[in-house]
């Protein structure tokens, strides 16, 4: 990130610094989700059976499909960076485009999945959920909190990717100056890592 206008000393770009800043930001994200993981583990220890039953109502197929989608989108972001480093702008744009589309696909699946659960009455204070034992209410509370917060991060990631895509297209992110792409990539990978944890915790809990 550069300094301001009209300064006597030319603003320099400190890539290492920008990257360190990004990692520090990722740490705050890790601890943000960490709080949820902490609650999850505490409640799973208390309600092992209920969590087991809770997982059975979830659509495992969509959960697994979304895992493949995110893993692959992570690959394409990583490829985009290597491609840009090698000067292949076209491949970079294609890879980023695919990533964005995968991100949107992920959201669509999420939408289908949530509507299914909600149609079944399985949402906080929903008629079906209120009939279930307490532990399952907690499971669904955590399910919506975790996937919802993760979903918001996917939305933010897609927006960031779209902006970077535009930067690459306009040549303001270049093979020698691609820190913005790299940091966006880091963010997207972290979103992927969080999902790697959500899959077994929620969908494979049964």
């Amino acid at each position, binding site marked *: 990130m550069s300094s301001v206008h009209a300064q006597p000393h030319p603003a320099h770009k400190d890539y290492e610094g920008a990257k360190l800043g990004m990692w520090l930001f990722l740490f705050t994200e890790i601890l943000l989700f960490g709080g949820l993981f902490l609650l999850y583990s505490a409640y799973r220890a208390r309600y092992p059976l209920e969590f087991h039953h809770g997982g059975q109502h979830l659509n495992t197929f969509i959960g697994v499909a979304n895992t*493949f989608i995110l893993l*692959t989108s992570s690959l394409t972001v990583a490829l985009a960076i290597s491609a840009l480093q090698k000067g292949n702008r076209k491949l970079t744009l294609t890879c980023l485009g*695919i990533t964005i*589309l*995968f991100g*949107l*696909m992920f*959201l*669509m699946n999420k*939408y289908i999945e*949530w*509507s299914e659960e*909600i149609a079944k009455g399985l*949402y*906080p*204070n*929903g008629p079906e959920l209120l009939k279930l034992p307490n532990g399952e209410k907690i499971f669904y509370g955590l399910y919506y909190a975790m996937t919802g917060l993760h979903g918001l991060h996917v939305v933010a990631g897609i927006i960031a990717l779209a902006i970077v895509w535009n930067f690459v297209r306009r040549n303001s992110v270049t093979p020698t100056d691609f820190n913005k792409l790299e940091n966006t990539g880091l963010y997207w990978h972290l979103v992927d890592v969080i999902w790697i944890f959500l899959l077994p915790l929620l969908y494979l809990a049964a």
Partner: protein
Amino acid sequence: MRGSLEKLMIQSKIMTHLIFLLALAFSPLVHAFQQAPAEVGVKEKLGSSVALDSVLRDEQGKPVTLRGLIQKPTILTLNYFRCAGICTPLLNSVADVINQVGLEPGKDFQVITVSFDPSDTPEIAEQKQINYLKLMKRPVAPAAWRFLTGDAVNTKRVSDSVGFHFRADKDQFVHPGVIIMLTPAGTVSHYLYGISFLPAEVQMSLQEAAAGQVSPTISRFLAFCYSYDPESRRYVLSATRLAGIAVLVFAAAFILFLYLGRSRGSKDKTGFTE
């Protein structure tokens, strides 16, 4: 990769339609989620009247109403007598307060404890009364601290009238820890939350209740009836005390070290360089 690319092409078309559907979907979602949760806790009813005409039983099993009992400022507590959680520390604290407060129990104020557990009997209530009166450090007439029981309907009417909500959980109850000040006319004047109370605070709120004032709640930290174990606190404090002594010993050793080190000579300017 190719397969998923094809799928992607199809899905991306559907996507555009769905994105704005997603946005639409959020409004009913929010609406669907907003329903009142089941309550445990206190919904304050400051200024309204306690259920004066519910028929309860006194310690001898005779029917009484709160209207018949309340003529002076009253501390109302709601408990159940088998309670393994916060009831005992709460009632003990009330007993402490009665011992320390600058008002005369039975004359300036009284305490009424109502059990909301319908399976509690007048016999248990009487035993409770005897036990708690034993804790008194000055002569207190039994009428100054009543322990009442009653059937589910009547006790529920009392607890509802002061906004006290509890829930059965296996063979125990989940309920808040609170004492409620009533004016001589039976109006809810003040809530004090927690399981231990300061004599001065109780005295001030009783004086306000005596004057018929209603005063808003100060700090609403709800203690719930969960596992509360006064024993373990004692262990902790002995552990902290041990650790505290260790720190003091360390500090003393450090100061000693400083002074001994200094007396070895005045080469301190180079003594602690990098």
